[in-house]
Every structure is written in C-alpha cells, then in structure tokens.
C-alpha cells in the first residue's frame, strides 16, 4: 500500500515552516524561515505576519521539491489552528484553504502543542512520557490520560521562553539564531550565583515576577560591577529550570510515569536537559529530548500530527478551517492514541 503523505504548515509565532512527512514519521522535507528582530526588540504580530506572507510560498515550493513529490501524491493539508498570534496564524490558514481547493485535498486543523508532543514522541521513540512543553509562548507539564493530553501544571503568567527572551532584550543580546540560545552560551561563562525569587505554586509556576526582579537587579548590579551579564544568565537559567524540574517530578510521581519528554523551543537548552536527566535517572527513568530541528516550531510536526488524525478519520471542512489565539492542549481528542491503548489492552488479553 502506498504510504500516506501530508503537507504541513506552521506559522503561529516568529517561524514559518512547511514540512512533508509520511505516516510512519519519515520527514521528507522540513524547510523553515525565522523572523529575527534586532537586539533589544521582540516580534510583533503585524510585522511577523508580513514576514510569513513573504516567505510562505517559496517554502511550499522548496518543501515539495526537496521531498520530490507532486501535489497529486499528497493525502491531506495540515495547518496550525492555534494557539499563537492571530495575524501570523492566518497566513498558513489562507494558503491551506486555497491549496485545498486547487488540488482537491482535505484539510486537517492541528493544535500546535499537541503537534510538539507527537513530533517529540515519533522522533525519540518515547511511548508514554510525562511531557514538559517549554517555549516562548507556552510552559506546560502534560501527561496523556483517557483520550486527551491533560495539563498537570503550567505557568500562571508568562512562558519560560518569554522570560528568557525578554531578559535577553535587557542585555541587548542578539536574537540570532534565538535569544535563548545566546543566553545559554553566555550562562556557561557564569561563575557567581545571584539569588533570584523561586516561584512554584503547587503544580504551577510563575515567571513574570522573576523577570521584573531580574530586570531591576540587572541594571543596578551591572552598574555597580557586582556581577557580570554571564552571572545573571547563569543564575536565571538555574532558577527557572529548577522550578520546571520540581513540577515535572511531581507530575511523574502523580501519574506513576518514569520517562520525560521535553519539547518546544526551550527544550533545546542543554542545561535544562542535563538537570532533567539527573532527576530522571534518580527515579530510574529516561529523558527524551530532541535538537533544534524538531524542538523548534516546524512544518513537519504539524504535518505528522494532522496525518495521525486524518488516518483515524478526522478532517476539517473548509468552512470550519478557522484559527484561534487560544486553544488549550486538553481540548483535543487524541483519537490516534485511543487506538494505541485498545491495541495494548488486546495484547494483554491475548497473553491472559
């Protein structure tokens, strides 16, 4: 039988990506382009959408060419429905709606957070991990239970990546390739640990107070030569990541799961991976993480997740192919995982 193929579009934040994948998780192409702002500046919805408008069609061509496929061979077109910034999300949605009519192909709307999880699972082979999803827009501890990815803990204000990105602006670090990467590199040179508030509230975390604190402290301490920018990056990372390790460990104990999967842009941070690996090994579990090709937003993750849903009979009519800024991870019915579950149960019954 011919392998099913999907074309996926991601453009919920400052990356625009188009990917081609098969149902067994083989990535045939996955080009993307990142909107990089000058040091000291973040990305705004309108400018980001303009960036996406400019790059999306060349990316479609490049994705098809690299994959060596024609539109005829595609089974479905997948796009990010949300969560994310409205104007950038609309760019992918509009192109998918037009292509769907031109090529007579069905559409599948995909939740961005679920796509990170499914991409992480297929790339690493993690079967049923506790998932830490950390990026510039999201911070959630997630575990699968009864048809949905349930959120066990999350940020109550800004995302961990947003905290890091905005601190990078205070230090006017480069946004190329990403502010978080440059913080990570600078943190390696840090020697002195500066005390920063540590804010865990039950299963949730809060970062906005920490950001305000370090923004104020940084200027003062740097002016008085009490510490270096590297010390601040190091201290901030250690504090934020320790908070994430704490709530992730609690979720593991609660769900009785041994493995962890880290996904999302901040997931490429090697210090975060190292801290999480130590905690995991103490509990006899394994850490699964990916590098920047899959951690950071990309088209293939949307294509793969959309294709999973499509292969289990789900698609989105053109009239309903909307986008939305708010779209929680647990709103999605993960039909493809229910089939896996029942597969397991059958296995157990056969053994008995």
């Amino acid at each position, binding site marked *: 039988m011919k392998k099913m193929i999907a074309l996926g579009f991601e453009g919920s934040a400052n990356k625009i990506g188009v990917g081609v994948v098969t149902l067994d998780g083989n990535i045939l192409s996955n080009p993307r382009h990142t909107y990089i702002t000058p040091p000291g500046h973040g990305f705004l919805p309108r400018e980001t959408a303009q960036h996406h*408008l400019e790059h999306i069609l060349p990316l479609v061509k490049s994705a098809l060419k690299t994959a060596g496929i024609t539109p005829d061979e595609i089974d479905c077109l997948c796009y990010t429905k949300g969560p994310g910034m409205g104007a950038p999300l609309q760019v992918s949605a509009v192109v998918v709606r*037009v292509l769907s009519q031109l090529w007579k192909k069905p559409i599948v709307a995909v939740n961005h957070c679920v796509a990170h999880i499914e991409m992480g699972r297929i790339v690493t082979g993690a079967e049923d991990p506790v998932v830490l999803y950390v990026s510039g827009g999201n911070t959630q501890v997630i575990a699968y239970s009864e048809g949905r990815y349930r959120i066990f803990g999350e940020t109550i204000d800004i995302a961990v990546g947003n905290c890091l990105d905005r601190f990078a602006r205070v230090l006017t670090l480069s946004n190329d390739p990403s502010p978080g990467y440059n913080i990570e590199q600078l943190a390696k040179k840090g020697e002195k640990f500066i005390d920063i508030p540590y804010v865990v509230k039950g299963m949730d975390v809060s970062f906005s107070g920490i950001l305000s604190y370090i923004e104020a402290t940084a200027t003062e301490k740097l002016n008085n030569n009490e510490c270096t920018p590297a010390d601040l990056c190091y201290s901030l990372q250690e504090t934020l990541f320790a908070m994430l390790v704490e709530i992730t460990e609690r979720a593991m104990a609660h769900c009785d799961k041994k493995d962890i999967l880290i996904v999302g842009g901040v997931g490429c941070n090697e210090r975060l991976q190292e801290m999480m690996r130590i905690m995991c090994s103490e509990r006899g579990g394994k850490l699964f993480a990916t590098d920047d090709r899959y951690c950071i937003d990309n088209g293939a993750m949307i294509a793969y997740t959309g294709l999973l849903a499509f292969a289990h009979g789900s698609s989105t009519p053109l009239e309903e192919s909307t986008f939305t800024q708010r779209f929680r991870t647990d709103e999605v019915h993960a039909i493809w995982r229910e089939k896996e579950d029942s597969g397991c149960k059958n296995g157990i019954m056969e053994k008995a």
Partner: protein
Amino acid sequence: MAAAVAPEVSQWEFSCDLEVDYESEENASIVYAALVVDKELQPDKVKRQMSVVNGKLLVHFEAVEARFLRASFSAFVDVLTLATKTIEQFGQGMEL
C-alpha cells in the same frame, strides 16, 4: 415602527468597495471561499460583505470610524494578495 429602524443606518458612516477581476469564476470563488472563513474581529465596528459576480470578487466594507475601516481593509488586502499569489503559483500548469 419603521422609524425605529432608521437611525441604525447612520451608524455605519464609513464605507468602501473593492473589486478584483479574476476573469475566472472558479478563481474568484476559490479566493472568496478562502477568505469568507475569517470573520471580522470587531463586528460591532466593521462589517465586510463579499460576493462573486462574473469572475469578479466584490468586497464591501462598512465601519463606524475611519481607522477601523482602514485597519480592516489593509489586513484584508494582505491576505487577498496572498490567496491570489497562491493561485498564480500553484494553480493549473504549476511548475516546481
């Protein structure tokens, strides 16, 4: 009774029309179907009506203030251009 309806008309003081001739009923309908999905974000401030006539896409905007009209029109033209370019580059006879 009829008098009560009248004041509502003056509320939508600002309006403008956009007409794009695709010279193709099919292409105009594709763009229409792709863009009609997204509703105006502030329906109490801006209204948008679209139709396809003789291969042309007709769009009518009405707003309560000029700035809402401008913002809505400008955002619409961006996605209209994108949809049109997508047809040009990936429609019949596309070359990869």
